[in-house]
């Protein structure tokens, strides 16, 4: 059977057909306002290029930035009620306190605080009061709101109060979309709460978009399951994606890096994804992007998603070559999508990084004759500047002084020299479609992040319990038992707390059965 990976980006929709671990065909079409149209064009073309019938495809995986863009552009967000289970704790700061005004207005300020949170050891702060939740449900229904976020203190440690509250609210508000924070993120209350609210407010867009994507796949005659790729590079089924759109927020850079790992056959490397305007540089560890340790900002909101630790610089194929007095700098301004009109090699008047790469013989694009008369010294200095910017980004991303390969992907990777700061540079085949390939090869996962008390449990037993639960999660998401491996395992003793509390996080991934 074949699988198809699609990346629905802001500008282009890329699609790839793969047979086991071999790429059979790659296409690129412009993204359309109604994503279904572009998707259908991409699917149709890629099936044709691979000379396949729709019944030969067993799986379609789609990566999309639609939901991230909706938050950034403040579009398609629905009014959402926030039900906090915390009292008397957490009263000092209201939900969305650190959000930009316009985003808070888009979501509305429908805030309800109730009891039902837990302490770090799972004891209740104050037990949930079902009658109180029912009253809140009545109020929400009276306001005509059908999107609800339920957020409990220490819900990642113990989620039963959130589930019970969600059940009561569902009774009071039939048909409402309810998001529980335990499904969204890890410890860090304000950040998890913000992410849960964003998720709830995106659900109606997510439902429409996912339906539209599934519809597009079906209209191309494909009868196979449709999955979406999530932040950590693993899969979720379409129904889950419709319920948890925020889990796709970082899938773009993740897919590029996973695709780069696959195409190069390297699992420990630095990936440079060079686009038209920017370059994203990140580290691959065991074939997965290294995660950032700090909070991630989405459209001005702090969240605590595990995002790839990507360092971005303003350098890409469309970057302008600026010369001021004796200083020459490439970027950060760029001609962007107008590259094929404004660059010198394409008949334009603007000297871009792509022109420099062509002049230096690193690429054959457009008409090199149009670069006649270009000062060789300018080319040399521009190349030096490009290399020093890339070298700095690589330097910041390295975790050790050991030699590590560099993988260049993305349309702008023609800027990469053959070696950089003494490191080998790999430019794999199909480098421009790394993101769609990353979607196509996605695996499924399970994850546990919880605080255990080591009073009656050894550290090893706590780790083993967490691993067993994560494996069970992955298996229930369709992973082949034998393929499940642990990708992350950490335990952090909690400073300043006696009682031997420790935070354990275990993540496993496995191949999807299809």
């Amino acid at each position, binding site marked *: 059977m074949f699988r198809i990976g699609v990346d629905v980006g802001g500008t282009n929709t890329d699609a790839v057909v793969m047979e086991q671990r071999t790429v059979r065909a790659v296409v690129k079409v412009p993204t359309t306002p109604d994503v279904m149209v572009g998707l259908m064009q991409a699917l149709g073309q890629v099936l044709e290029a691979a000379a396949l019938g729709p019944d030969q495809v067993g799986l379609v995986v789609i990566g999309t930035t639609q939901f991230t863009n909706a938050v950034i552009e403040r579009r398609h967000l629905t009014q959402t009620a926030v039900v906090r289970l915390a009292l008397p704790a957490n009263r000092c700061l209201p939900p969305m306190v650190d959000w930009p005004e316009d985003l808070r207005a888009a979501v509305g300020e429908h805030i309800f605080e109730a009891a039902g949170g837990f302490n*770090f050891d799972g004891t209740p702060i104050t037990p949930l009061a079902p009658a109180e939740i029912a009253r809140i449900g009545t109020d929400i229904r009276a306001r005509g709101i059908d999107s609800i976020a339920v957020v409990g203190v220490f819900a990642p440690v113990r989620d039963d109060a959130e589930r019970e509250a969600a059940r009561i609210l569902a009774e009071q508000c039939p048909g409402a979309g309810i998001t529980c924070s335990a499904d969204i993120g890890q410890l860090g209350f304000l950040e998890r709460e913000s992410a849960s609210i964003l998720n709830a407010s995106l659900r109606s867009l997510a439902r429409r978009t996912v339906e539209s994507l599934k519809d597009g796949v079906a209209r191309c005659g494909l009868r196979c399951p449709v999955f979406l790729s999530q932040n950590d590079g693993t899969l979720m089924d379409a129904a889950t994606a419709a319920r948890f759109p925020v889990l796709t927020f970082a899938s773009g850079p993740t897919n590029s890096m996973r695709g780069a790992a696959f195409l190069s056959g390297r699992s420990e490397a630095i990936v440079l994804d060079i686009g038209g305007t920017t370059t994203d540089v990140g580290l691959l560890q065991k074939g997965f992007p290294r995660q950032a*340790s700090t909070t991630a900002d989405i459209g001005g909101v702090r969240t605590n998603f595990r995002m790839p630790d990507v360092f971005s610089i303003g350098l890409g194929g469309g970057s302008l070559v600026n010369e001021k007095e004796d200083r020459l700098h490439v970027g950060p301004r760029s001609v962007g999508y107008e590259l094929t009109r404004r660059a010198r090699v394409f008949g334009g008047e603007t000297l871009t990084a792509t022109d420099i790469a062509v002049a230096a013989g690193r690429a054959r694009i457009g008409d090199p004759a149009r670069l006649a008369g270009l000062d060789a010294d300018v080319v040399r200095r521009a190349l030096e500047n490009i290399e020093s910017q890339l070298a700095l980004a690589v330097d910041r991303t390295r975790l*050790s002084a050991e030699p590590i390969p560099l993988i260049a992907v993305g349309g702008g990777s023609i800027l990469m020299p053959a070696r950089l700061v003494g490191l080998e540079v790999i430019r794999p085949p199909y480098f421009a479609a790394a993101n769609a390939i990353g979607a196509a090869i996605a695996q499924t996962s399970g994850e546990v992040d919880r605080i255990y008390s080591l009073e009656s449990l050894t550290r090893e037993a706590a780790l083993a319990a967490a691993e067993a639960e994560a494996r069970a999660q992955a298996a229930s998401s369709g992973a082949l038992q034998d393929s499940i491996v642990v990708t992350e395992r950490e335990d952090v003793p909690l*400073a300043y707390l006696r009682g031997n509390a420790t935070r354990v996080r275990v993540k496993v991934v496995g191949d999807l059965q299809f």
Partner: protein
Amino acid sequence: MRTLNPSDIEALAIGTAILGTGGGGNPYITKLRVLEELKRGRRVQLLGLDELEDDALVLSIGGIGAPAVSIEKLEEGTEGVRALRAMEEFLGAKVDALISAEIGGGNGLEPMVTAAALDLPVVDADGMGRAFPEMQMTTFSIYGHRSTPAAVCDEHGNVVLFRHAVSELWFERLARATVVSMGGTAIGAEAPMRGRYVKRAGVPGTVSQSIRLGHLVLEANRAHRSAIPEICALEHGIHLIDAKIVDLKRHLQGGFSVGTLELEGIDAHAGSSARIDFQNEFLTFERAGRIEVCVPDLIVILDVDSGHAITTDVLRYGQRVAVLALPCHPLLRTPEALAVVGPRAFGLENIEFHPLPRPGERAP
């Protein structure tokens, strides 16, 4: 008296992180709370030591507990007020002003929340002039004052009063046990002092110092220039090295984050290397086999581009940092202070404290 505005509070959070010398906890949540108080129309007033009455009753307010819990279970909001009221009741006297025991990190802002609620001034001073890992490491305690009586309050409104502890160590032990049973975090009101004692034992001017530092960094960011030379000029500091972290060893030991950082010089400092040891806060800076700076002088690690502080928990390989040394206040340099906060107090038996020159002093 000076009234602080929201941009002062933003600056204060940046400045207290710098004086945290790698520790002290993240001031983000406390900063948001103070800003909310200002939005409600309340005010935070800063009282200079010269404006403080000798007989004024000054109380120190701060959070106690695990930072990992305090990012999830936040305060109800009136803990500080309740702890303060319990102390007033016990003492039979009204509190006139609040103070932070530790300016470095989140606790540098904690008294502002209660101060805004009760319209009490915050004294422009603290008990460390930086951050230290333990409660007894304050100048208040070093110069003979006891933390007890003290009150601890949780989000339910439970208030525990510590009438008397026979030593600071006992207080630390009893307070920790109480806070764990309160769910891991609480607010404490401790060490009621008279104005005349604060003038003698408090590290002066550290709140306004933090605000100045923060404004300077923000202004430099806006103008796209480096904040580092200006920080050095303001603090009489030394720009030790611009470097890349080339090795980082870190582990938890007795509730502290303990480790070593190896640095390799970059740009103007290329070719030189250095090492920093830490225990929550940065303890020593060593270059070419010689300890150039050690605790209680401040070793500060800043992001080389933004000038914002980097704390020990987010240090990582490959970061490009600027390392600065800032002279600590003379109150931390006396023999009685060095016995509590000098290198030997951190188990550094063979290291002698050679103080950095202060303004007006010449380098030795």
